[in-house]
Protein backbone atom coordinates (compact mmCIF):
# COMPACT_ATOMS: atom_id res chain seq x y z
CA UNK A 1 0.00 0.00 0.00
CA UNK A 2 1.04 3.53 -0.73
CA UNK A 3 -0.37 6.31 1.45
CA UNK A 4 -0.94 9.88 0.38
CA UNK A 5 -1.80 12.76 2.71
CA UNK A 6 -4.17 15.12 1.00
CA UNK A 7 -5.74 18.42 1.88
CA UNK A 8 -7.92 20.86 -0.07
CA UNK A 9 -6.69 23.93 1.78
CA UNK A 10 -10.32 24.97 2.30
CA UNK A 11 -11.62 28.36 3.41
CA UNK A 12 -13.20 27.63 6.81
CA UNK A 13 -14.98 30.95 7.38
CA UNK A 14 -18.20 30.66 5.34
CA UNK A 15 -21.12 31.86 7.47
CA UNK A 16 -23.33 29.18 8.99
CA UNK A 17 -26.32 30.05 6.82
CA UNK A 18 -24.19 30.21 3.65
CA UNK A 19 -26.02 27.47 1.77
CA UNK A 20 -29.38 29.08 2.48
CA UNK A 21 -28.47 32.54 1.23
CA UNK A 22 -25.76 31.95 -1.42
CA UNK A 23 -26.13 30.00 -4.63
CA UNK A 24 -22.52 28.99 -5.10
CA UNK A 25 -19.20 28.74 -3.28
CA UNK A 26 -17.59 28.84 -6.73
CA UNK A 27 -17.00 31.55 -9.34
CA UNK A 28 -19.63 34.05 -8.18
CA UNK A 29 -19.19 34.14 -4.38
CA UNK A 30 -17.47 37.49 -4.01
CA UNK A 31 -13.77 37.55 -3.16
CA UNK A 32 -14.60 40.41 -0.79
CA UNK A 33 -15.35 37.57 1.64
CA UNK A 34 -11.73 36.44 1.37
CA UNK A 35 -9.56 37.96 4.10
CA UNK A 36 -5.85 37.96 3.11
CA UNK A 37 -4.67 38.26 6.75
CA UNK A 38 -6.59 35.11 7.69
CA UNK A 39 -5.43 33.63 4.37
CA UNK A 40 -1.81 34.16 5.41
CA UNK A 41 -2.37 32.30 8.68
CA UNK A 42 -4.17 29.51 6.84
CA UNK A 43 -1.38 28.94 4.31
CA UNK A 44 1.14 28.71 7.13
CA UNK A 45 -1.06 26.30 9.07
CA UNK A 46 -2.02 24.14 6.07
CA UNK A 47 1.52 23.92 4.68
CA UNK A 48 2.89 22.85 8.04
CA UNK A 49 0.11 20.28 8.49
CA UNK A 50 0.93 18.77 5.12
CA UNK A 51 4.71 18.93 5.59
CA UNK A 52 4.36 17.25 9.00
CA UNK A 53 2.92 14.19 7.25
CA UNK A 54 6.42 13.38 6.01
CA UNK A 55 7.92 10.84 8.37
CA UNK A 56 4.50 9.80 9.70
CA UNK A 57 4.14 6.89 7.30
CA UNK A 58 2.90 8.74 4.26
CA UNK A 59 4.65 8.10 0.94
CA UNK A 60 3.37 11.25 -0.67
CA UNK A 61 1.81 14.62 0.11
CA UNK A 62 -0.79 15.81 -2.33
CA UNK A 63 -2.00 19.19 -3.51
CA UNK A 64 -4.52 20.11 -6.19
CA UNK A 65 -5.90 22.95 -8.32
CA UNK A 66 -9.18 24.83 -7.95
CA UNK A 67 -10.14 28.32 -9.03
CA UNK A 68 -12.25 31.16 -7.67
CA UNK A 69 -13.70 29.19 -4.79
CA UNK A 70 -13.78 28.85 -1.03
CA UNK A 71 -13.53 25.09 -1.59
CA UNK A 72 -9.76 25.11 -1.99
CA UNK A 73 -7.14 27.83 -1.91
CA UNK A 74 -4.62 26.34 -4.33
CA UNK A 75 -5.33 27.88 -7.73
CA UNK A 76 -1.65 27.40 -8.59
CA UNK A 77 -0.76 23.87 -7.40
CA UNK A 78 2.82 24.11 -8.61
CA UNK A 79 3.38 27.04 -6.27
CA UNK A 80 2.08 25.03 -3.30
CA UNK A 81 4.18 22.07 -4.45
CA UNK A 82 7.24 24.34 -4.47
CA UNK A 83 6.57 25.37 -0.89
CA UNK A 84 6.27 21.70 0.11
CA UNK A 85 9.43 20.71 -1.75
CA UNK A 86 11.22 23.26 0.42
CA UNK A 87 9.66 21.95 3.64
CA UNK A 88 10.28 18.23 3.00
CA UNK A 89 13.23 15.94 2.26
CA UNK A 90 12.00 12.53 1.17
CA UNK A 91 8.25 12.52 0.64
CA UNK A 92 6.92 12.53 -2.87
CA UNK A 93 4.88 15.60 -3.76
CA UNK A 94 1.79 14.62 -5.75
CA UNK A 95 0.18 17.38 -7.79
CA UNK A 96 -3.37 16.06 -8.28
CA UNK A 97 -3.39 17.62 -10.63
CA UNK A 98 -2.56 20.37 -12.99
CA UNK A 99 -5.69 21.31 -14.96
CA UNK A 100 -3.86 21.27 -18.28
CA UNK A 101 -6.72 22.38 -20.58
CA UNK A 102 -7.23 25.52 -18.48
CA UNK A 103 -3.74 26.81 -19.23
CA UNK A 104 -3.36 29.05 -22.23
CA UNK A 105 -0.40 26.86 -23.12
CA UNK A 106 0.57 23.46 -21.72
CA UNK A 107 4.26 24.21 -22.28
CA UNK A 108 3.99 26.23 -19.06
CA UNK A 109 3.05 23.06 -17.15
CA UNK A 110 5.76 21.11 -18.96
CA UNK A 111 8.33 23.65 -17.73
CA UNK A 112 7.04 24.07 -14.19
CA UNK A 113 6.69 20.37 -13.42
CA UNK A 114 10.13 19.63 -14.87
CA UNK A 115 11.60 22.41 -12.70
CA UNK A 116 9.91 20.97 -9.62
CA UNK A 117 11.11 17.48 -10.45
CA UNK A 118 14.69 18.61 -10.84
CA UNK A 119 14.62 20.85 -7.74
CA UNK A 120 13.10 18.08 -5.60
CA UNK A 121 15.54 15.45 -6.86
CA UNK A 122 12.79 13.46 -8.58
CA UNK A 123 10.03 13.52 -5.98
CA UNK A 124 7.19 14.80 -8.16
CA UNK A 125 4.06 12.90 -9.15
CA UNK A 126 2.35 14.62 -12.05
CA UNK A 127 -1.42 14.39 -11.86
CA UNK A 128 -3.39 15.84 -14.75
CA UNK A 129 -7.05 16.84 -14.76
CA UNK A 130 -9.49 18.67 -17.01
CA UNK A 131 -10.57 21.07 -14.28
CA UNK A 132 -14.11 21.09 -12.90
CA UNK A 133 -16.95 22.49 -14.97
CA UNK A 134 -17.11 25.63 -12.85
CA UNK A 135 -13.50 26.40 -13.71
CA UNK A 136 -14.39 26.91 -17.36
CA UNK A 137 -15.95 30.17 -16.18
CA UNK A 138 -12.61 31.37 -14.84
CA UNK A 139 -10.42 31.76 -17.91
CA UNK A 140 -12.89 31.85 -20.79
CA UNK A 141 -11.72 28.44 -21.98
CA UNK A 142 -14.59 26.84 -23.88
CA UNK A 143 -15.89 23.73 -22.05
CA UNK A 144 -16.70 22.29 -25.48
CA UNK A 145 -12.93 21.99 -26.04
CA UNK A 146 -12.13 20.61 -22.58
CA UNK A 147 -11.60 16.99 -23.57
CA UNK A 148 -9.78 17.79 -26.83
CA UNK A 149 -7.46 20.21 -25.06
CA UNK A 150 -6.83 17.72 -22.25
CA UNK A 151 -5.71 14.97 -24.59
CA UNK A 152 -3.68 17.26 -26.84
CA UNK A 153 -2.01 18.97 -23.87
CA UNK A 154 -1.16 15.54 -22.43
CA UNK A 155 0.30 14.35 -25.73
CA UNK A 156 2.37 17.50 -26.05
CA UNK A 157 3.56 17.24 -22.42
CA UNK A 158 4.75 13.65 -22.77
CA UNK A 159 6.34 14.37 -26.15
CA UNK A 160 8.12 17.43 -24.76
CA UNK A 161 9.57 15.31 -21.94
CA UNK A 162 10.54 12.29 -24.01
CA UNK A 163 11.37 13.35 -27.58
CA UNK A 164 14.69 15.07 -28.17
CA UNK A 165 14.03 18.74 -28.91
CA UNK A 166 13.59 20.87 -30.75
CA UNK A 167 10.64 19.61 -32.75
CA UNK A 168 7.46 21.13 -34.24
CA UNK A 169 4.01 20.70 -32.72
CA UNK A 170 1.05 21.38 -34.99
CA UNK A 171 -2.10 20.44 -33.12
CA UNK A 172 -5.63 21.73 -33.26
CA UNK A 173 -5.34 23.75 -30.05
CA UNK A 174 -1.59 24.24 -29.64
CA UNK A 175 1.06 25.14 -32.15
CA UNK A 176 4.73 25.45 -31.25
CA UNK A 177 7.54 25.95 -33.73
CA UNK A 178 10.21 24.81 -31.27
CA UNK A 179 9.31 22.30 -28.56
CA UNK A 180 12.55 22.18 -26.61
CA UNK A 181 11.94 22.75 -22.88
CA UNK A 182 14.84 23.32 -20.49
CA UNK A 183 15.06 21.74 -17.94
CA UNK A 184 13.98 18.16 -18.59
CA UNK A 185 12.59 16.12 -15.66
CA UNK A 186 15.06 14.12 -13.56
CA UNK A 187 12.79 11.06 -13.39
CA UNK A 188 13.22 8.88 -16.46
CA UNK A 189 11.34 9.08 -18.77
CA UNK A 190 9.21 11.57 -16.78
CA UNK A 191 7.37 11.91 -13.42
CA UNK A 192 4.64 9.31 -12.90
CA UNK A 193 1.33 10.49 -14.33
CA UNK A 194 -1.77 10.09 -12.19
CA UNK A 195 -5.30 10.66 -13.28
CA UNK A 196 -7.68 12.03 -10.64
CA UNK A 197 -11.19 11.42 -11.94
CA UNK A 198 -14.75 10.66 -11.03
CA UNK A 199 -14.50 7.74 -13.35
CA UNK A 200 -16.16 8.04 -16.78
CA UNK A 201 -15.51 4.78 -18.62
CA UNK A 202 -13.66 6.43 -21.52
CA UNK A 203 -11.27 8.08 -19.06
CA UNK A 204 -10.76 4.79 -17.20
CA UNK A 205 -9.99 3.02 -20.49
CA UNK A 206 -7.48 5.68 -21.51
CA UNK A 207 -5.75 5.51 -18.11
CA UNK A 208 -5.54 1.73 -18.35
CA UNK A 209 -4.09 1.94 -21.85
CA UNK A 210 -1.43 4.39 -20.69
CA UNK A 211 -0.87 2.45 -17.41
CA UNK A 212 -1.44 5.63 -15.44
CA UNK A 213 -2.61 5.52 -11.83
CA UNK A 214 -6.35 6.07 -11.77
CA UNK A 215 -7.32 8.18 -8.82
CA UNK A 216 -10.98 8.10 -7.90
CA UNK A 217 -12.18 11.12 -5.93
CA UNK A 218 -15.40 11.97 -4.06
CA UNK A 219 -17.22 8.76 -4.85
CA UNK A 220 -19.35 6.24 -3.02
CA UNK A 221 -17.62 2.88 -2.58
CA UNK A 222 -19.92 1.35 -5.22
CA UNK A 223 -18.56 3.78 -7.85
CA UNK A 224 -15.00 2.93 -6.85
CA UNK A 225 -15.75 -0.79 -7.17
CA UNK A 226 -17.10 -0.15 -10.66
CA UNK A 227 -14.21 1.97 -11.93
CA UNK A 228 -11.45 -0.26 -10.48
CA UNK A 229 -13.13 -3.30 -12.01
CA UNK A 230 -13.36 -1.48 -15.36
CA UNK A 231 -9.69 -0.50 -15.12
CA UNK A 232 -8.64 -4.10 -14.52
CA UNK A 233 -10.78 -5.33 -17.41
CA UNK A 234 -9.39 -2.70 -19.76
CA UNK A 235 -5.85 -3.54 -18.59
CA UNK A 236 -6.45 -7.19 -19.46
CA UNK A 237 -7.62 -6.02 -22.91
CA UNK A 238 -4.30 -4.22 -23.23
CA UNK A 239 -2.51 -7.39 -22.22
CA UNK A 240 -1.42 -6.83 -18.63
CA UNK A 241 -2.53 -7.14 -15.02
CA UNK A 242 -2.44 -3.81 -13.22
CA UNK A 243 -0.30 -3.29 -10.16
CA UNK A 244 -2.60 -2.45 -7.20
CA UNK A 245 -0.77 0.89 -6.92
CA UNK A 246 -2.27 1.87 -10.28
CA UNK A 247 -5.65 1.97 -8.52
CA UNK A 248 -6.02 4.94 -6.20
CA UNK A 249 -8.76 6.35 -4.03
CA UNK A 250 -9.06 9.75 -2.34
CA UNK A 251 -11.40 9.67 0.64
CA UNK A 252 -12.02 11.84 3.71
CA UNK A 253 -10.91 9.85 6.76
CA UNK A 254 -11.39 10.78 10.39
CA UNK A 255 -10.10 8.69 13.26
CA UNK A 256 -11.49 9.45 16.71
CA UNK A 257 -11.01 7.73 20.07
CA UNK A 258 -14.06 5.56 19.44
CA UNK A 259 -16.85 5.29 16.88
CA UNK A 260 -19.42 7.50 18.61
CA UNK A 261 -17.11 10.35 19.50
CA UNK A 262 -15.53 10.19 16.03
CA UNK A 263 -18.85 10.70 14.26
CA UNK A 264 -19.90 13.45 16.65
CA UNK A 265 -16.56 15.25 16.18
CA UNK A 266 -16.35 14.85 12.41
CA UNK A 267 -19.98 15.44 11.44
CA UNK A 268 -20.10 19.27 11.37
CA UNK A 269 -16.82 19.51 9.46
CA UNK A 270 -17.54 16.99 6.75
CA UNK A 271 -21.04 18.44 6.34
CA UNK A 272 -19.44 21.88 5.93
CA UNK A 273 -17.51 20.38 3.01
CA UNK A 274 -20.52 18.75 1.39
CA UNK A 275 -23.18 21.38 2.13
CA UNK A 276 -21.26 24.65 1.91
CA UNK A 277 -17.96 24.29 0.09
CA UNK A 278 -19.33 22.09 -2.72
CA UNK A 279 -22.43 24.21 -3.28
CA UNK A 280 -22.86 25.38 -6.88
CA UNK A 281 -25.55 25.40 -9.60
CA UNK A 282 -25.84 22.40 -11.94
CA UNK A 283 -24.43 24.37 -14.82
CA UNK A 284 -21.21 24.79 -12.88
CA UNK A 285 -20.82 21.04 -12.56
CA UNK A 286 -21.65 20.22 -16.13
CA UNK A 287 -21.42 23.28 -18.40
CA UNK A 288 -22.59 22.91 -21.99
CA UNK A 289 -20.32 20.61 -23.97
CA UNK A 290 -18.14 19.63 -20.99
CA UNK A 291 -19.10 15.96 -21.28
CA UNK A 292 -20.05 13.95 -24.37
CA UNK A 293 -23.66 14.39 -25.53
CA UNK A 294 -24.84 10.94 -24.45
CA UNK A 295 -23.54 11.49 -20.92
CA UNK A 296 -25.12 14.95 -20.71
CA UNK A 297 -28.47 13.68 -22.03
CA UNK A 298 -28.48 10.86 -19.47
CA UNK A 299 -28.48 13.27 -16.53
CA UNK A 300 -30.65 16.05 -17.98
CA UNK A 301 -33.59 15.25 -15.70
CA UNK A 302 -31.45 15.40 -12.58
CA UNK A 303 -29.93 18.82 -13.29
CA UNK A 304 -31.93 20.84 -10.83
CA UNK A 305 -30.87 18.55 -7.97
CA UNK A 306 -27.14 18.93 -8.55
CA UNK A 307 -25.48 20.98 -5.84
CA UNK A 308 -28.63 21.14 -3.75
CA UNK A 309 -28.51 17.74 -2.03
CA UNK A 310 -27.11 17.85 1.47
CA UNK A 311 -26.10 14.33 2.50
CA UNK A 312 -25.56 13.86 6.23
CA UNK A 313 -22.27 12.52 7.56
CA UNK A 314 -24.11 9.33 8.50
CA UNK A 315 -25.38 8.89 4.93
CA UNK A 316 -21.92 9.56 3.50
CA UNK A 317 -20.39 6.99 5.85
CA UNK A 318 -23.09 4.45 5.01
CA UNK A 319 -22.35 4.66 1.29
CA UNK A 320 -18.60 4.49 1.87
CA UNK A 321 -17.89 8.00 0.61
CA UNK A 322 -16.17 8.96 3.87
CA UNK A 323 -14.56 6.79 6.53
CA UNK A 324 -15.09 7.79 10.15
CA UNK A 325 -14.77 5.92 13.42
CA UNK A 326 -12.41 4.69 16.09
CA UNK A 327 -9.13 3.11 14.95
CA UNK A 328 -10.52 -0.44 14.78
CA UNK A 329 -13.58 0.51 12.76
CA UNK A 330 -11.53 2.66 10.36
CA UNK A 331 -9.03 -0.18 9.85
CA UNK A 332 -11.83 -2.67 9.21
CA UNK A 333 -13.54 -0.31 6.80
CA UNK A 334 -10.32 0.34 4.92
CA UNK A 335 -9.54 -3.39 4.61
CA UNK A 336 -13.04 -3.99 3.33
CA UNK A 337 -12.73 -1.14 0.81
CA UNK A 338 -9.30 -2.28 -0.34
CA UNK A 339 -10.46 -5.87 -0.72
CA UNK A 340 -13.56 -4.96 -2.68
CA UNK A 341 -11.67 -2.69 -5.08
CA UNK A 342 -8.07 -3.88 -5.28
CA UNK A 343 -6.71 -0.38 -4.65
CA UNK A 344 -3.06 -0.06 -3.67
CA UNK A 345 -2.88 3.73 -3.36
CA UNK A 346 -4.89 5.43 -0.66
CA UNK A 347 -5.13 9.20 -0.30
CA UNK A 348 -6.59 10.31 2.98
CA UNK A 349 -8.22 13.71 3.01
CA UNK A 350 -7.11 14.84 6.42
CA UNK A 351 -8.98 18.13 6.76
CA UNK A 352 -12.46 18.88 5.45
CA UNK A 353 -12.95 22.56 6.08
CA UNK A 354 -13.60 23.77 9.57
CA UNK A 355 -11.51 21.27 11.57
CA UNK A 356 -9.13 22.95 13.99
CA UNK A 357 -5.40 22.32 13.80
CA UNK A 358 -5.57 20.34 17.05
CA UNK A 359 -8.38 18.15 15.82
CA UNK A 360 -6.68 17.59 12.46
CA UNK A 361 -3.42 16.65 14.14
CA UNK A 362 -5.13 14.30 16.60
CA UNK A 363 -6.93 12.45 13.79
CA UNK A 364 -3.73 12.17 11.70
CA UNK A 365 -1.90 10.94 14.81
CA UNK A 366 -4.39 8.11 15.40
CA UNK A 367 -4.46 7.29 11.70
CA UNK A 368 -0.69 7.05 11.35
CA UNK A 369 -0.04 5.32 14.69
CA UNK A 370 -2.95 2.92 14.93
CA UNK A 371 -4.30 2.34 11.43
CA UNK A 372 -1.82 2.79 8.59
CA UNK A 373 0.95 0.61 10.12
CA UNK A 374 -1.56 -2.27 10.14
CA UNK A 375 -2.05 -1.74 6.41
CA UNK A 376 1.51 -1.09 5.38
CA UNK A 377 2.54 -3.98 3.16
CA UNK A 378 -1.10 -5.03 3.05
CA UNK A 379 -2.12 -6.16 -0.38
CA UNK A 380 -5.68 -6.37 -1.55
CA UNK A 381 -7.21 -9.75 -0.94
CA UNK A 382 -7.06 -10.82 -4.56
CA UNK A 383 -9.46 -13.71 -4.12
CA UNK A 384 -12.07 -11.43 -2.64
CA UNK A 385 -11.46 -8.89 -5.39
CA UNK A 386 -11.83 -11.44 -8.16
CA UNK A 387 -15.05 -12.63 -6.55
CA UNK A 388 -16.41 -9.09 -6.66
CA UNK A 389 -15.19 -8.63 -10.20
CA UNK A 390 -16.75 -11.79 -11.61
Amino acid sequence: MKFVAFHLMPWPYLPENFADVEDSAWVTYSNQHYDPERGHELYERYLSELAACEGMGFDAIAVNEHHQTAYGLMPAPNIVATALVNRTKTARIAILGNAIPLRDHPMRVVEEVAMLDVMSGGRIICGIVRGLGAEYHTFGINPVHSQERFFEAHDLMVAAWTRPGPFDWDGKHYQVKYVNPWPRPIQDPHPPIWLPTQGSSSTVRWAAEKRYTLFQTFSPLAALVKSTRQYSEFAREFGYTPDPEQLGWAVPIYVGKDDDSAMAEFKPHVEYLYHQLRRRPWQATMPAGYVPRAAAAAVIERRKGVGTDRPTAEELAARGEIIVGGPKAVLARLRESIDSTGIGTLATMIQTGTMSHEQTTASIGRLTELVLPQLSGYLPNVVAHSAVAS
Partner: protein
Amino acid sequence: MEWNEHTVDTDGGPFVLHEAGEGPATIVYLHDEQSAMPGPVAAKLAERARVVAPSHPGFGTANRPEWVESVRDVAEHYVDLLGALALPSTTALVGASMGAWIATELAIRTGCPFSSLSLINPIGIHVPGHPAKDFWYVRNPEELLFTDPAAMPEVPAGERVANEESAARYGWSPRLHDPTLAPRLHRLALPVQLVWGTDDRLLPKEHLDAWRDLLPAADVAEIPSAGHFPGYEQPDHTADVIAEFIAQSAN
Protein backbone atom coordinates in the same frame (compact mmCIF):
# COMPACT_ATOMS: atom_id res chain seq x y z
CA MET B 1 -47.91 22.83 -39.70
CA GLU B 2 -45.45 20.30 -41.11
CA TRP B 3 -41.88 21.03 -42.05
CA ASN B 4 -40.43 19.03 -44.90
CA GLU B 5 -37.06 18.00 -43.47
CA HIS B 6 -34.42 16.80 -45.90
CA THR B 7 -30.69 16.71 -46.46
CA VAL B 8 -28.93 18.87 -49.04
CA ASP B 9 -25.56 17.52 -50.15
CA THR B 10 -22.97 20.07 -51.17
CA ASP B 11 -19.24 20.09 -51.87
CA GLY B 12 -18.84 21.47 -48.33
CA GLY B 13 -20.78 18.63 -46.73
CA PRO B 14 -24.43 17.81 -45.97
CA PHE B 15 -26.95 20.28 -44.54
CA VAL B 16 -30.24 19.60 -42.75
CA LEU B 17 -32.96 21.80 -44.28
CA HIS B 18 -36.59 22.42 -43.31
CA GLU B 19 -39.02 23.78 -45.89
CA ALA B 20 -42.66 24.83 -45.73
CA GLY B 21 -45.15 27.25 -47.26
CA GLU B 22 -45.44 28.99 -50.57
CA GLY B 23 -45.98 32.54 -51.72
CA PRO B 24 -44.39 35.35 -53.69
CA ALA B 25 -41.47 35.68 -51.25
CA THR B 26 -38.82 33.22 -50.16
CA ILE B 27 -37.46 33.54 -46.62
CA VAL B 28 -34.29 31.97 -45.28
CA TYR B 29 -34.90 31.59 -41.54
CA LEU B 30 -31.95 31.03 -39.20
CA HIS B 31 -33.08 29.54 -35.90
CA ASP B 32 -32.12 30.59 -32.38
CA GLU B 33 -30.21 28.42 -29.89
CA GLN B 34 -33.35 26.99 -28.23
CA SER B 35 -34.14 24.53 -30.99
CA ALA B 36 -32.69 23.20 -34.23
CA MET B 37 -36.21 23.50 -35.70
CA PRO B 38 -37.46 26.79 -37.19
CA GLY B 39 -39.99 27.38 -34.39
CA PRO B 40 -43.42 29.09 -34.22
CA VAL B 41 -42.53 32.45 -35.81
CA ALA B 42 -41.13 30.67 -38.87
CA ALA B 43 -44.29 28.57 -39.00
CA LYS B 44 -46.37 31.77 -39.02
CA LEU B 45 -44.21 33.19 -41.83
CA ALA B 46 -44.70 29.96 -43.80
CA GLU B 47 -48.43 30.70 -43.92
CA ARG B 48 -47.66 33.45 -46.42
CA ALA B 49 -44.22 32.71 -47.90
CA ARG B 50 -41.88 29.89 -48.78
CA VAL B 51 -39.60 29.38 -45.76
CA VAL B 52 -36.27 27.58 -46.01
CA ALA B 53 -34.61 26.90 -42.65
CA PRO B 54 -31.36 24.99 -42.09
CA SER B 55 -30.28 23.55 -38.74
CA HIS B 56 -27.02 25.21 -37.80
CA PRO B 57 -23.97 22.92 -37.82
CA GLY B 58 -23.84 20.92 -34.58
CA PHE B 59 -27.43 21.72 -33.61
CA GLY B 60 -29.94 18.85 -33.58
CA THR B 61 -28.68 16.22 -35.98
CA ALA B 62 -26.90 18.66 -38.30
CA ASN B 63 -23.38 17.85 -39.43
CA ARG B 64 -20.59 20.15 -38.23
CA PRO B 65 -17.36 20.06 -40.24
CA GLU B 66 -14.48 19.97 -37.75
CA TRP B 67 -13.18 23.37 -38.82
CA VAL B 68 -16.46 25.13 -37.95
CA GLU B 69 -15.80 26.61 -34.51
CA SER B 70 -17.32 30.11 -34.54
CA VAL B 71 -20.31 32.05 -35.84
CA ARG B 72 -18.08 33.41 -38.59
CA ASP B 73 -17.19 29.83 -39.56
CA VAL B 74 -20.89 28.90 -39.59
CA ALA B 75 -21.59 31.73 -42.04
CA GLU B 76 -18.62 30.65 -44.16
CA HIS B 77 -20.01 27.09 -44.16
CA TYR B 78 -23.44 28.39 -45.25
CA VAL B 79 -21.88 29.82 -48.42
CA ASP B 80 -21.87 26.21 -49.67
CA LEU B 81 -25.57 25.83 -48.84
CA LEU B 82 -26.58 29.07 -50.57
CA GLY B 83 -24.64 27.95 -53.64
CA ALA B 84 -26.56 24.68 -53.72
CA LEU B 85 -30.01 26.24 -53.13
CA ALA B 86 -29.99 28.74 -56.03
CA LEU B 87 -32.52 30.99 -54.27
CA PRO B 88 -34.45 33.72 -56.12
CA SER B 89 -33.16 37.29 -55.92
CA THR B 90 -36.17 38.30 -53.80
CA THR B 91 -35.11 36.10 -50.88
CA ALA B 92 -35.36 37.67 -47.43
CA LEU B 93 -33.07 36.67 -44.58
CA VAL B 94 -34.43 36.39 -41.02
CA GLY B 95 -32.66 35.22 -37.86
CA ALA B 96 -33.27 35.12 -34.12
CA SER B 97 -30.67 35.59 -31.35
CA MET B 98 -27.61 33.53 -32.43
CA GLY B 99 -29.40 32.95 -35.75
CA ALA B 100 -29.54 36.75 -36.19
CA TRP B 101 -25.81 36.92 -35.52
CA ILE B 102 -25.21 34.20 -38.14
CA ALA B 103 -27.53 36.00 -40.59
CA THR B 104 -25.56 39.23 -40.13
CA GLU B 105 -22.27 37.44 -40.80
CA LEU B 106 -23.77 35.66 -43.80
CA ALA B 107 -25.05 38.90 -45.34
CA ILE B 108 -21.66 40.56 -44.84
CA ARG B 109 -19.77 37.52 -46.17
CA THR B 110 -21.90 37.16 -49.32
CA GLY B 111 -22.26 40.83 -50.23
CA CYS B 112 -25.94 40.99 -49.26
CA PRO B 113 -27.72 39.08 -52.06
CA PHE B 114 -30.98 39.34 -50.07
CA SER B 115 -33.99 41.65 -50.36
CA SER B 116 -33.93 42.38 -46.61
CA LEU B 117 -32.50 41.28 -43.27
CA SER B 118 -34.63 40.93 -40.11
CA LEU B 119 -32.79 40.45 -36.83
CA ILE B 120 -34.80 39.28 -33.81
CA ASN B 121 -33.10 40.25 -30.51
CA PRO B 122 -29.66 39.70 -32.05
CA ILE B 123 -26.62 38.78 -30.01
CA GLY B 124 -23.15 39.25 -31.48
CA ILE B 125 -21.91 42.73 -30.63
CA HIS B 126 -20.05 43.94 -27.57
CA VAL B 127 -21.65 46.85 -25.73
CA PRO B 128 -19.09 48.19 -23.24
CA GLY B 129 -20.51 48.40 -19.71
CA HIS B 130 -23.64 46.44 -20.63
CA PRO B 131 -22.69 42.79 -21.07
CA ALA B 132 -25.32 40.16 -21.73
CA LYS B 133 -26.46 38.43 -18.54
CA ASP B 134 -24.96 34.97 -18.10
CA PHE B 135 -27.50 32.20 -18.61
CA TRP B 136 -24.63 29.71 -18.28
CA TYR B 137 -24.13 30.22 -14.54
CA VAL B 138 -27.61 30.28 -13.03
CA ARG B 139 -29.85 27.56 -11.69
CA ASN B 140 -32.87 28.56 -13.80
CA PRO B 141 -31.67 29.99 -17.13
CA GLU B 142 -35.22 29.94 -18.57
CA GLU B 143 -36.13 32.77 -16.19
CA LEU B 144 -33.56 35.00 -17.93
CA LEU B 145 -34.60 33.99 -21.41
CA PHE B 146 -38.41 34.11 -21.24
CA THR B 147 -40.88 36.41 -19.51
CA ASP B 148 -43.00 33.26 -19.17
CA PRO B 149 -40.71 30.22 -18.78
CA ALA B 150 -43.60 28.04 -19.98
CA ALA B 151 -42.97 29.48 -23.47
CA MET B 152 -39.66 27.62 -23.62
CA PRO B 153 -39.98 24.98 -26.34
CA GLU B 154 -40.04 21.29 -25.41
CA VAL B 155 -36.97 19.72 -26.95
CA PRO B 156 -35.95 16.05 -26.57
CA ALA B 157 -32.94 15.54 -24.27
CA GLY B 158 -30.63 14.35 -27.05
CA GLU B 159 -31.32 17.40 -29.22
CA ARG B 160 -31.19 19.74 -26.27
CA VAL B 161 -27.66 18.79 -25.24
CA ALA B 162 -26.53 19.04 -28.88
CA ASN B 163 -28.01 22.55 -29.07
CA GLU B 164 -26.47 23.58 -25.75
CA GLU B 165 -23.06 22.27 -26.77
CA SER B 166 -23.23 24.09 -30.11
CA ALA B 167 -24.39 27.37 -28.57
CA ALA B 168 -21.45 27.15 -26.16
CA ARG B 169 -19.05 26.29 -28.97
CA TYR B 170 -19.99 29.46 -30.86
CA GLY B 171 -20.80 31.77 -27.95
CA TRP B 172 -18.75 30.91 -24.86
CA SER B 173 -15.77 33.15 -25.43
CA PRO B 174 -15.85 36.01 -26.18
CA ARG B 175 -19.19 35.74 -24.41
CA LEU B 176 -22.03 35.95 -27.00
CA HIS B 177 -20.19 38.37 -29.26
CA ASP B 178 -17.41 38.84 -31.78
CA PRO B 179 -15.42 42.05 -31.32
CA THR B 180 -14.80 42.18 -35.09
CA LEU B 181 -18.51 42.25 -36.00
CA ALA B 182 -19.41 45.88 -35.22
CA PRO B 183 -16.59 47.34 -37.37
CA ARG B 184 -17.97 45.40 -40.37
CA LEU B 185 -21.67 46.20 -39.96
CA HIS B 186 -21.43 49.17 -42.38
CA ARG B 187 -21.23 46.59 -45.17
CA LEU B 188 -24.90 45.69 -44.65
CA ALA B 189 -26.05 47.31 -47.90
CA LEU B 190 -29.67 46.13 -47.70
CA PRO B 191 -32.81 47.04 -45.72
CA VAL B 192 -32.35 45.91 -42.11
CA GLN B 193 -35.05 45.46 -39.48
CA LEU B 194 -34.38 45.18 -35.74
CA VAL B 195 -37.16 43.22 -34.02
CA TRP B 196 -36.93 43.51 -30.25
CA GLY B 197 -38.79 41.73 -27.46
CA THR B 198 -38.94 44.65 -25.06
CA ASP B 199 -38.73 42.55 -21.88
CA ASP B 200 -35.41 40.94 -22.84
CA ARG B 201 -33.61 40.12 -19.55
CA LEU B 202 -30.60 38.58 -21.30
CA LEU B 203 -29.61 41.63 -23.34
CA PRO B 204 -29.83 45.06 -21.70
CA LYS B 205 -31.76 47.68 -23.69
CA GLU B 206 -28.40 49.30 -24.51
CA HIS B 207 -27.85 46.49 -27.02
CA LEU B 208 -30.81 47.68 -29.10
CA ASP B 209 -29.47 51.24 -28.82
CA ALA B 210 -26.04 50.08 -30.00
CA TRP B 211 -27.47 48.21 -33.01
CA ARG B 212 -29.48 51.35 -33.92
CA ASP B 213 -26.36 53.49 -33.67
CA LEU B 214 -24.43 51.09 -35.87
CA LEU B 215 -27.30 50.75 -38.38
CA PRO B 216 -28.95 54.21 -38.42
CA ALA B 217 -31.16 53.36 -41.41
CA ALA B 218 -32.59 50.24 -39.77
CA ASP B 219 -36.28 49.86 -39.13
CA VAL B 220 -37.14 49.02 -35.50
CA ALA B 221 -40.14 46.96 -34.41
CA GLU B 222 -40.61 46.53 -30.68
CA ILE B 223 -42.59 43.50 -29.46
CA PRO B 224 -44.13 44.06 -26.02
CA SER B 225 -44.77 41.19 -23.58
CA ALA B 226 -41.84 39.23 -24.94
CA GLY B 227 -38.36 38.51 -23.64
CA HIS B 228 -35.29 37.46 -25.59
CA PHE B 229 -37.29 35.09 -27.81
CA PRO B 230 -40.36 36.97 -29.09
CA GLY B 231 -40.71 34.27 -31.76
CA TYR B 232 -41.92 31.90 -29.03
CA GLU B 233 -43.73 34.38 -26.80
CA GLN B 234 -45.48 36.55 -29.43
CA PRO B 235 -45.23 34.58 -32.68
CA ASP B 236 -48.19 36.31 -34.39
CA HIS B 237 -47.08 39.85 -33.69
CA THR B 238 -43.45 39.01 -34.53
CA ALA B 239 -44.38 37.33 -37.82
CA ASP B 240 -46.66 40.24 -38.75
CA VAL B 241 -43.98 42.91 -38.39
CA ILE B 242 -41.43 40.79 -40.25
CA ALA B 243 -43.81 39.94 -43.12
CA GLU B 244 -44.74 43.60 -43.44
CA PHE B 245 -41.10 44.66 -43.59
CA ILE B 246 -40.28 41.97 -46.17
CA ALA B 247 -43.18 43.13 -48.36
CA GLN B 248 -42.14 46.79 -48.06
CA SER B 249 -38.52 45.99 -48.88
CA ALA B 250 -39.47 43.95 -51.94
CA ASN B 251 -41.18 46.97 -53.53
